[in-house]
C-alpha cells in the first residue's frame, strides 16, 4: 500500500514537474508593422502584449517588420525559437503567416484583420471599429457648424469604407445636411501626409477631422486650427486636449490574454473573431466635456445600445450614392455584407479609388 502511495506521489510530482516546466517554457510572440512608439495601431497591440506578460506569460515582440519578404523569416524565427503562439498584427502578414503555419503545425498563429485561414492552426481576429465610428458620427453631426466632416482614409479596403459609411449614416441621422469629404493618403502611418490631408480638409470647410490612419498628426493639426477631432486606435487626448472629443480605442488586451491562456492550457481552437463594443475590443476614451452633458448622455446611451444589440450601425433604409437600396427599412446589414463592403452610402462625396 505504502509502495503504491509512494509511486503515486512520485508520478504526480513528476507530471507536475513536466507540466510546470511546459508552462514555464510557454512563450508568445508578436510581430508589429510599426514602432511600438507610434501611439496608434502598434502601440495598442503592445499594450495588449504587456497585459499577457502581466498575466504571467513570457512574451517577445519584433517591431517595424516590413510587410515584404522579411516578414516570413521573422515569423518563422519566432516559431523556430520556441514560441507557442504568434500574433501577426498587420494585414500584410497574411500570406507569410499561413506559409509558416503550414510548416509548424504545433505552433498556433493569430493573424489580425486578414481573411485567410488555410491551416487549422491559424485564427484570424479583428474588431468592429465601425461601431466606434457610429458614435463619432453622432457627435460630428451634432457638433459641426459647417456641415462638412473631413475624413482621412488610408486604403479603400472594406474595413475603411465601413468606417466612413457608419460615421456618415450616424451623422445624417442627427443632421441630414452633413457631407463627408474624404482624402485618401494611401498609407497607415505617415505624419507628414496625414497632416497635409487634415489641412486640406480644413481648408475645404471641414470643422470636424477624423482619420483612419495611425499617427497623432491629424489631431495636432486640428488643435492648431481650432476644429474638432477624434483620436484613432489609442487615447490621443494628450496630443490635442482642446480639440479631441473622444478616441476610438482598440483594446486587444483581453483577447490576447484569453487566447494566450487558451493556448497554454491546450484549449485553443481555430476561430474567426470579430469583436466590438460589447466585448470591449472597441472602447471609447472619456468624452470631452466641451460637448455638453446632454450630448454626452446621448452618446453614452447609444454606446450602451450598440453594445447590447439594441442599436446597429447599419440599420436600413440605407442607400448608396446613386440611390440604390443597400439595406431595406427595418433590417440590418449582415456580417457578410459588412465584410465585403465596397460602395459609399449616400452623403459621402467622391468615388472610391479603383
Amino acid at each position, binding site marked *: 500500500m505504502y509502495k503504491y502511495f509512494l509511486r503515486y506521489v512520485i508520478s504526480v510530482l513528476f507530471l507536475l514537474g513536466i507540466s510546470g516546466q511546459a508552462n514555464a517554457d510557454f512563450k508568445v510572440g508578436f510581430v508589429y508593422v510599426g514602432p511600438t512608439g507610434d501611439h496608434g495601431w502598434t502601440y495598442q497591440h503592445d499594450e495588449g502584449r504587456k497585459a499577457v506578460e502581466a498575466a504571467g506569460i513570457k512574451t517577445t515582440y519584433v517591431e517595424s517588420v516590413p510587410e*515584404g*519578404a522579411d516578414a516570413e523569416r521573422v515569423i518563422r524565427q519566432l516559431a523556430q525559437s520556441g514560441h507557442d503562439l504568434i500574433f501577426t498584427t498587420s*494585414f*500584410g502578414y497574411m500570406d507569410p503567416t499561413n506559409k509558416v503555419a503550414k510548416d509548424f503545425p504545433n505552433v498556433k498563429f493569430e493573424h489580425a484583420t486578414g*481573411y485567410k485561414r488555410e491551416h487549422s492552426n491559424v485564427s484570424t481576429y479583428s474588431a468592429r471599429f465601425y461601431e466606434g465610428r457610429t458614435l463619432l458620427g453622432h457627435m460630428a453631426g451634432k457638433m459641426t457648424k459647417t456641415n462638412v466632416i473631413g475624413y482621412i482614409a488610408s*486604403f479603400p*479596403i*472594406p474595413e475603411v469604407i465601413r468606417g466612413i459609411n457608419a460615421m456618415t449614416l450616424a451623422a445624417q441621422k442627427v443632421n441630414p445636411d452633413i457631407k463627408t469629404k474624404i482624402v485618401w493618403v494611401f498609407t497607415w502611418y505617415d505624419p507628414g501626409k496625414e497632416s497635409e490631408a487634415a489641412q486640406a480638409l480644413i481648408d475645404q470647410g471641414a470643422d470636424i477631422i477624423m482619420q483612419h490612419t495611425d499617427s497623432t498628426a491629424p489631431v495636432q493639426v486640428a488643435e492648431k486650427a481650432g476644429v474638432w477631432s477624434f483620436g484613432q486606435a489609442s487615447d490621443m487626448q494628450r496630443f490635442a486636449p482642446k480639440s479631441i472629443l473622444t478616441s476610438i480605442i482598440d483594446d486587444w488586451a483581453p483577447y490576447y490574454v484569453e487566447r494566450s491562456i487558451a493556448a497554454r492550457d491546450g484549449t485553443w481552437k481555430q476561430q474567426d473573431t470579430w469583436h466590438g463594443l460589447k466585448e470591449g475590443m472597441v472602447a471609447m476614451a472619456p468624452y470631452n466635456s466641451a460637448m455638453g452633458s446632454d450630448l454626452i448622455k446621448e452618446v453614452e446611451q447609444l454606446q450602451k445600445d450598440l453594445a447590447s444589440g439594441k442599436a446597429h450601425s447599419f440599420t436600413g433604409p440605407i442607400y448608396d450614392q446613386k440611390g440604390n437600396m443597400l439595406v431595406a427599412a427595418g433590417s440590418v446589414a449582415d456580417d457578410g455584407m459588412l465584410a*465585403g463592403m465596397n460602395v459609399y452610402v449616400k452623403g459621402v462625396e467622391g468615388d472610391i479609388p479603383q
Partner: protein
Amino acid sequence: MEALLIKVEKRNDVSPSIYFLTPILAIFLTLIGGAIIFYVLGFNPIEALKFFFVTPISDLYGLSELLVKATPLCLIAIGLSFCFKSNNWNIGAEGQLIFGGIVGGGVALLFYGHDGFYVLPIIILSGAIGGMIFALIPAILKTYFNTNEILVSLMLVYVAKLLLDYLVVGPWSNPEGFNFPETRQFSESARMPILFDGLRIHAGIFITLATVFLSWLILYKTYLGFQIKVSGLSLKTAKYAGYKGKTMIIIVFIISGACAGLAGVGEITGPIGQLHRNISPDYGFTAIIVAFLGRLNPVGIIFASLVVALTYLGAETAQIFLQVPKYTGQVFQGMILFFLLGSDYLLFFKIKFLGLRKNEL
C-alpha cells in the same frame, strides 16, 4: 593666442593590400563599437554579438536566408559599381528596382494561369528592361540637358513608388482580394525555382553570380571597362584620349538599371510572389553602402553584401532573443560606413601635428 596646427597631406604611396584590408578593419572596429553600445545598453556584449552575428547563420535555414537577403544587395551594388567607378552618381537604384518589379510583375500578371518554361525568362528579361528604361531617364537628362543625375535619379524613386502604389491599389489589385493593396499571387510558372525544399533560396542567386562574373569581365578585360576606370580617375584624361563620354554614361546607367531591375524581379518572383507596396525594404539605398564597402570590386561586393545582409538578420535575431531595439541593425550599418570612410581618409591623407605656435592677432 596659441593654436594647434594640423596639416593634412596627401599620401602618394597606398599599398593595394592595405586598401583592401581597410574594410575588414572597419568591420572589426564596428564589432568593438557595437560591443560598447551593447554594454552601455545593459546587455552582455559577447552574448549580444553572438546573437547578432553567429546565431542567424547557425543553421541551413539561416544560411539560406542570408543568401536570400544578400542576393538583391549584391546585384544592385554590382550595377552601381559601374556608375560610381565612372563618376556617375546614380542614387536611384531603389526606383529602378521598383520599376523593374512593376514591369516584370505586369508581365507576370499578363501570364496569369499560363504554364510553360518560357514564362519566367520573359518576366526576368522584362524586369531588367524596366530597370534599364528607368535608369535611362537620368542618363539622357544628364548627357543632353546637363541635369544633375543625383537629384533626378533620387526623385524618380518616389515616382516609381507612387506608380506602384497606384497600380496595386487600382488597376492591378487582386479581384478577389477585397480591395487590399496587392495583386494576385503569381502562377507557379512565374516563380523562381526553389533550390532546396523548405528553404527560400531560389534560382535568382545564379543570375547574381553570372552578373558578378560578367561585370568582372567587362570591368577588367574589356576596352569599355578601361574607359570607365579612366573616366573615373580623370575626366580630362578621358576626354583627351578621345573617349565618347556620353555613350559611356548611358551604358553605365543601363547596366546599373538592368541590375536593379533584375533585383526587383528576383524579389517579386522569388520570396514575395506578388506585387504589393513593400517589395523592397530600401535595398536600392543599402546597396550604396554595399558597393563602397566592397571597394566597387565584384568580389569585394559579394563579401560586402553578405556582411550587410547579416546585419539585417542579426538585428532581427537580437530583437527576438534579447529584445534589443530593431534599429541597432541600422546603427551597425552606419558604423561600418563611418569606420570605412574614416580609415579611408587616414589611408589617403597624412595628418601632421606641427605643434603649438603663437598666433599674432
